[in-house]
């Protein structure tokens, strides 16, 4: 069977994680994604600075590999006339133009929406920005940590302060929104014959992630206040984190119904707790008497180890789970069987594990096909096979330092 986006060509002019991640979601689904990079330095995400971390046995950057798997690379000097001609030919034969470069920069390269639409009226122009495509902060610098701080989610920290999320939480959100926007625009073209510009942003991604916090603020005049879950606990004892005797963390994610209360009392085995009049309704347990109950549960859980609690909790239908680190997640057979982490044949390093696809289509599934490209790895193939240049043209471009 074909892949969902097979036959779709994407010109991916992106840097770092936000844009490249958007392109990789489309590539995983079968699109031919051509990453256009600056001829000499490439995407700065290749080096990644302090984020890169290539000091491993493979010499591979986890950052670049993850964000650019399944793509081809065209390395070119776009500031030359010839370079612009190449990109023009490529755009004529493509379905989607994808970028997270600032719009001012794209304009200077002759790649604004109006420019690209003139080159190919059927193309979809998908742009991911930091702060949206309108408003006073349009030209303010943005990136992952700024997206997180601006977008509200990390205003819930602990007593220690905010907890910004390592792993490019906001960039990932931007990447997903960009891929989703591009896919919607593609569907609009398939169904209605309309090609258009679609804009997403890091801020918009944070709005989606925090949607019910926003809506609570708008309706009730307040959301959970900043740093309110200090001391590592949340207001509701049934939806909270606890520690065992050895300090291992786990959580319960329940609502506090009568059934759940009975089950929890059995687990805790504290005499008289179930009949305590302070806790005889769900409202009392989760609201009025919540803090008192939280203390009781916390103290009780701290008396035994997780080996004691695990079988007891597993025998109930209470949703609960241990805190796991990534070593634990990666060695979980369930994770591997679902291919949330999947194998990829790397030409130089044999079978390597890569992050799998989060959504599975049964008949046109996405697939990990190839590792991230070397800089300019596919330049010649793209120039001759897609852009219809002769080998003489290619050699001329090399001499003129348009390509390598």
């Amino acid at each position, binding site marked *: 069977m074909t892949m969902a986006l097979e036959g779709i060509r994407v010109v991916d002019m992106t840097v770092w994680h936000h844009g490249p991640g958007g392109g990789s979601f489309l590539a995983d689904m079968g699109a031919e994604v051509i990453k256009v990079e600056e001829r000499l330095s490439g995407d700065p995400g290749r080096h990644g600075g302090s984020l890169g971390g290539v000091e491993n046995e493979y010499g591979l950057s986890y950052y670049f590999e993850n964000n650019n798997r399944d793509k081809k690379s065209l390395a070119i000097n776009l500031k030359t006339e010839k370079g612009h001609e190449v990109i023009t030919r490529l755009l004529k034969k493509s379905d989607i133009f994808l970028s997270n470069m600032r719009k001012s920069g794209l304009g200077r390269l002759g790649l604004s929406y109006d420019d690209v639409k003139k080159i190919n009226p059927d193309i979809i122009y998908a742009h991911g920005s930091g702060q949206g495509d309108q408003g006073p902060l349009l030209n303010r610098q943005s990136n992952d940590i700024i*997206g997180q701080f601006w977008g509200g989610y990390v205003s819930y920290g602990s007593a220690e302060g905010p907890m910004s999320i390592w792993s490019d939480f906001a960039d990932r959100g931007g990447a997903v929104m960009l891929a989703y926007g591009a896919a919607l625009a593609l569907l609009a073209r398939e169904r209605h014959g309309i090609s258009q510009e679609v804009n997403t942003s890091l801020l918009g991604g944070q709005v989606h992630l925090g949607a019910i916090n926003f809506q609570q603020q708008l309706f009730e005049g307040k959301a959970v206040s900043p740093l309110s879950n200090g001391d590592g606990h949340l207001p509701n004892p049934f939806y909270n984190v606890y520690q065992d005797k050895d300090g291992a963390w786990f959580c319960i994610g329940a609502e506090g119904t009568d059934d759940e209360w009975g089950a929890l009392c059995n687990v805790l085995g504290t005499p008289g707790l179930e009949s305590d009049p302070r806790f005889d309704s769900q409202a009392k347990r989760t609201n009025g008497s919540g803090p008192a109950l939280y203390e009781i549960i916390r103290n009780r859980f701290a008396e035994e180890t997780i080996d004691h609690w695990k079988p007891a909790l597993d025998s109930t239908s209470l949703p609960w789970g241990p805190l796991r680190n990534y070593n634990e997640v990666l060695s979980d057979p369930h994770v591997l069987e679902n291919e949330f982490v999947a194998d990829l044949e790397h030409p130089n390093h044999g079978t390597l594990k890569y992050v799998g696809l*989060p959504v599975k289509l049964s008949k046109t599934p996405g697939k990990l096909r190839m590792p991230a490209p070397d800089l300019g790895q596919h330049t010649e193939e793209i120039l001759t096979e897609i852009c219809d240049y002769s080998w003489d043209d290619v050699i001329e471009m090399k001499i003129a330092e348009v390509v390598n």
Partner: protein
Amino acid sequence: MPMVLEGITVIELSTGQQGPVAGALLADMGADVIKIEDKDHGDPGRNVRTETPGREPFPLSYYFENNNRNKRGVALDYSGDEGIEVLRKLVTEADVFLSNFPIADLADMGLDYPRLSAANEKLIYAVATGMGPTGPDRDKPLNDITAQLYGGIQSHGNSDGPVPFWGGMANQEDAILLAFGIVNALIARERHGVGQEVYSALLGSQINWAALNVQSNIFNKREPWGMKREAPLSPFWNYYQTKDDRWLCLGFLQENRDWHTLCQVLEREDLEFDPRFDSNPKRTKINNQVLIPIMRECFLQKTLDEWMEILGRHDLGWSILNDYEMLTEDPQVVANEYVVDFDHPKVGPVQMVGIPVRLKKTPGALRTPAPELGEHTDEVLSSIGGFDADGLRQLRNQGVIN
């Protein structure tokens, strides 16, 4: 101009947040999303709102309204054969079936893919799961907070413990990934003529959203150090407290270029050529633990307002720590219609969360509020289900609908 998903019918059998939000994302883009609810109890999400003693609660649930806007509502007793038969009729006419019910429950109800697709070959059958469609722990319950701990992202929290994020982070992440999957399946149906199953999972979404942590662990064989304040971060990718106990962050990617400006901003020009900090490796790696406390001290000297004024004059990467009160009034949020005005038939003008994916020609729109329980039962069953007045009466007599 049509909306992207105009003409697409989605039958949604889901509760809470993970499934309903995926449905709302499609509804925002023009799909006719029909939410099926238990006729007596409805989606328990209807009851989520803040009860403050002595204060009249806001008449609408922020949770249900946000998760179910733009949908139509059908209330049905689907515990018996008659109700299931009605559901199957609706699915036969639909483009997408969407649920976050456990896979085993759907099979017990006769709503598995083989049976539904037998009557509707091009159907897209989408299920938002906790643990994924296969594997030894497939039927283990997982929800937002357990997924955050089980998926790894909370393992590098502050030193005083994990800080599960409020607002359904895992649910929201999975909902948009499932919506992405459904849109891809719709594209595949247009281009390749197939219907199919689509599965997402809270666990899979947690792993994918934290892809950099996971890939780093695979290649570099170590846990992420996280963003604990004592972590060995770059001083330029870090956060700082101000004189008035507020927070701001710096996020520079061009540290060399910006070092001179930063020294001016901090009024510490003496640092610029200080031999401890005269190269980028020294500033960000070798002596970062010397520089960070110095910068912390600097930021404590002024209030947040003062810093905003000073930093705003320079082209630097920085942000204040916004909370939702600030954000809902933020001119940037309003200008991009991330929050929009909406005339709600029940309570009049309110503000709702907007549509963060902005398609210029076929934009999404907030059209209708979340439905009342069973608000559209008759109209949906007669138009899509093909029931006439007698048929509806019979269902009513059987207690299948109200």
